[in-house]
């Protein structure tokens, strides 16, 4: 197991945005659940957790059964309970909305059951009888972890190749600390790996350190779960100024260690997606007096979730809408502001609208680089639009090579990665069976 995270981390100053339930709160909320038939919340969960079932088990005090139901569908049920955008997934489809009654807090109930399971150390799953097969998994994020766990339940040996020293992918290095901190993600990794039989190799970048040929010869099948690439940056005048960088990289630094924000009075985050919203909320949480989100479209057309932006506004965070950054302005080698122009309804720069938004720190959250040539050398595996092309079972065009998670879906949520990893594991099992 890789070493734990350092105790000095900026992320540790955040409290939970959605605090855990006490047992009494959980029981009251669980008893509100209508136990719908063919419940819409289940269909809204990419991993198809039996939500009314696990909630009823909380209500009756069968917490172990409740947790088992959750993990059986989604081995990342603990982190998903905290990081899933439930407002647009399960909770968003609760039938109570149609009654004008607050929806059941499914995420918080799921957190209750899974936290108790972790706290009590309950174990639910055993590795299946050894099949003699071995699967190599590239990346140790949610997709690969879900795949590896399912493959172990099916009796296949697993080896995970991860380029970093920490495991868990963006669940450890990316999600907002007021949802889940890095150490909690690592405890999930440990919990998943307790099934045994998953070899972990960190510090290995594929294909640079181990070639695809080598992997193909070591394993009977491969799963690719390497996520997206680094932050995309803008090639503007002043981009080499100190204090200009990518948001995902900054978030990772803040989660894995301590970031130095001394002297930063105001910050700008460029972008209007969920990473941008996370970054402005995190900067504000770390005490930056003024943080502005600068986005090229309007509020109505932002790609980030409405509920996330509403929470940011509640923290007093402001946005500058319909702005196009055209240059970073500097002061002694350090950034001091972002020069912007207003965009009109046709996204055209409004003449004479140039202005500078002051900033001692500028983070770019305009997307992560798509895959380029990582899979060159793997004949039959295609990339389209920056995504690995897969069928509905996660199969690439090359027999025995599967993929899932952000690298295949273009960047969704942890729960999608978990669902796709598990589905691919089953498809691999079927494929191996068929080869016999």
């Amino acid at each position: 197991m890789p070493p734990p995270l350092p105790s000095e981390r900026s992320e540790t100053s955040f409290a939970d945005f959605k605090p855990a339930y006490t047992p009494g709160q959980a029981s009251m909320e669980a008893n509100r659940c209508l136990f719908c038939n063919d419940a819409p919340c289940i269909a809204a969960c990419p991993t198809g957790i039996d939500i009314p079932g696990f909630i009823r088990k909380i209500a009756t005090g069968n917490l172990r059964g409740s947790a088992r139901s959750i993990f059986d569908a989604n081995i990342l049920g603990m982190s998903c309970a905290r990081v899933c955008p439930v407002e647009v997934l399960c909770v968003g489809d609760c039938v109570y909305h149609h009654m004008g009654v607050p929806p059941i807090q499914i995420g918080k109930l799921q957190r209750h059951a899974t936290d108790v399971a972790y706290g009590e150390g309950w174990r639910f799953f055993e590795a299946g009888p050894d099949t003699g097969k071995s699967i190599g998994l590239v990346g140790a994020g949610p997709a690969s972890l879900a795949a590896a766990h399912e493959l172990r339940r099916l009796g296949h040996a697993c080896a995970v190749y991860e380029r970093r020293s920490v495991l868990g992918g963006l669940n450890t290095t990316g999600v907002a600390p007021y949802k889940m901190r890095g150490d909690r993600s690592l405890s999930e990794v440990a919990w998943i790996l307790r099934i045994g039989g998953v070899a972990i190799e960190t510090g290995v970048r594929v294909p640079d350190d181990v070639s695809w040929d080598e992997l193909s010869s070591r394993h009977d099948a491969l799963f690719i779960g390497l996520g997206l690439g680094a932050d995309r940056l803008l090639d503007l005048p002043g981009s080499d100024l100190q204090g200009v960088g990518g948001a995902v990289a900054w978030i990772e630094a803040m989660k894995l260690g301590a970031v130095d924000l001394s002297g930063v009075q105001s910050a700008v985050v460029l972008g209007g997606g969920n990473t941008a919203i996370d970054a402005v909320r995190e900067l504000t949480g770390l005490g930056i007096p003024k943080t502005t989100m600068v986005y090229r479209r309007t509020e109505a057309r932002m790609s980030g979730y409405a509920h996330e932006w509403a929470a940011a506004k509640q923290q007093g965070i402001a946005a500058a809408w319909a702005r196009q950054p055209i240059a970073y302005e500097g002061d002694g080698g350090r950034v001091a502001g972002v020069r912007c122009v207003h965009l009109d309804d046709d996204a055209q720069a409004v003449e004479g609208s140039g202005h500078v938004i002051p900033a001692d720190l500028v983070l770019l959250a305009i997307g992560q680089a798509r895959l380029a040539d990582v899979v060159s050398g793997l004949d039959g595996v295609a990339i389209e639009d920056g995504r690995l092309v897969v069928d509905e079972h996660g199969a690439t065009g090359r027999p025995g090579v599967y993929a899932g998670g952000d690298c295949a879906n273009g960047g969704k949520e942890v729960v999608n990665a978990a669902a796709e990893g598990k589905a691919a594991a089953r498809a691999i099992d079927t494929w191996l069976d068929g080869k016999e």
Partner: protein
Amino acid sequence: MPDLTTNCAGIVSPNPFWLASAPPTNSGEQVMRAFDAGWGGAVWKTLGQPIQNVSSRFGAIRWKGMAGVGFNNIELITDRPLEANFREIAEVKQRYPKHAVIVSLMVETQDEWKDIIKRSIDAGADGIELNFGCPHGMCERGMGSAVGQEPLVNERITSWAVEYSTVPVLVKLTPNVDDILPHGRAAQAGGAHGVSLINTIKSVIGVDIDTFVPQPVVGGQSTNGGYCGAAVRPIALHMVAALARDPDFNIPISGIGGITNWRDAVEFMLLGSTSVQVCTEVMLRGYRIVEDMIEGLETWMDDKGFAKTDDFVGRAVPSYQEWGDLDLNFELIAKIDAATCIGCQLCMVACHDGAHQCIHPNPDGSRVPIVDEPECVGCNLCEIVCPVPECITMVEVDNGYAPATWNQHVGQGAPLRPKKGSHD
């Protein structure tokens, strides 16, 4: 993993959870789906001369927006042809040989009993349940609770059934009696292998206050029906326990009445039920509630170290005593945990208006009430109304008095502690 296999009066099922004779066991297709969901046994919807039902036929008590805390019905026995029922019973038994199918029966004459028992057994019944319980419709025709309320008739018909049956016979008792004991004993005297209880309780579930017709409404009229669902559990538990602790009654019990989950089932089993039957909760939520029932029971047994259900069936019976044998010197007082108190003061109101006026506003001005301990009688009303689990606890006080029951006090002059809460 504990073993849930159950043998109730010679009827063996993979777990103690049976469907009670009612709409959920109306047909073979339903019973097979129920077995797939995990039910261990099913008592088939009562067979007899098929009847004609009314519409509507159900009523329910609503409590805080939830329907069905108490439930009532005026339906009768099966309305499907006997041939169809027997054909489906045979099919179920063929496909599910390890599950228990108990056929519930209600007919009038000795010949009819003989015939229908034979046909049930030929179809593959693992057991027979005599429906002496239905409190509406059938009793007016001299069947159902009309039989269950007459120990002599009960014993006679039971003895016929036992004579004609090659499989175990359960007698399903009606709760519409003042004392259950003579009725349980009559079934035993008739040779029954076990009893099932309770059937439904005679009731009027409600009245439509706009049309002035009681519910359920049939045209412009209504009639009394049978009450069941969670609300009847305490009555059922009492009747089960009364039989379980009767030294003259010693055949197995299949407990029924208001069971909604594994906890309720455990309670029935602790008071002496070998198997349990469920109707209303399945009608309201479907067969799949059994998944949690099985898992919850297994987990509870694991936690308690029980390997099989026999290890705990009846475990609560010895501590059920007569009032006169309770220790009057045992003393509890309420303690409020200020750290978890939410200041709703429901306890204060309850104690002032409904108990002994010993919970008061806090003189320090906070909303956490205080207990006047010398006046607290330890009734535990405050603990019941408190919405916060574990906030109010009942704590035992050592008052220096030796245990003394009323019977010991009256018989042997055992000294009693001074009374509390009389405010004199």
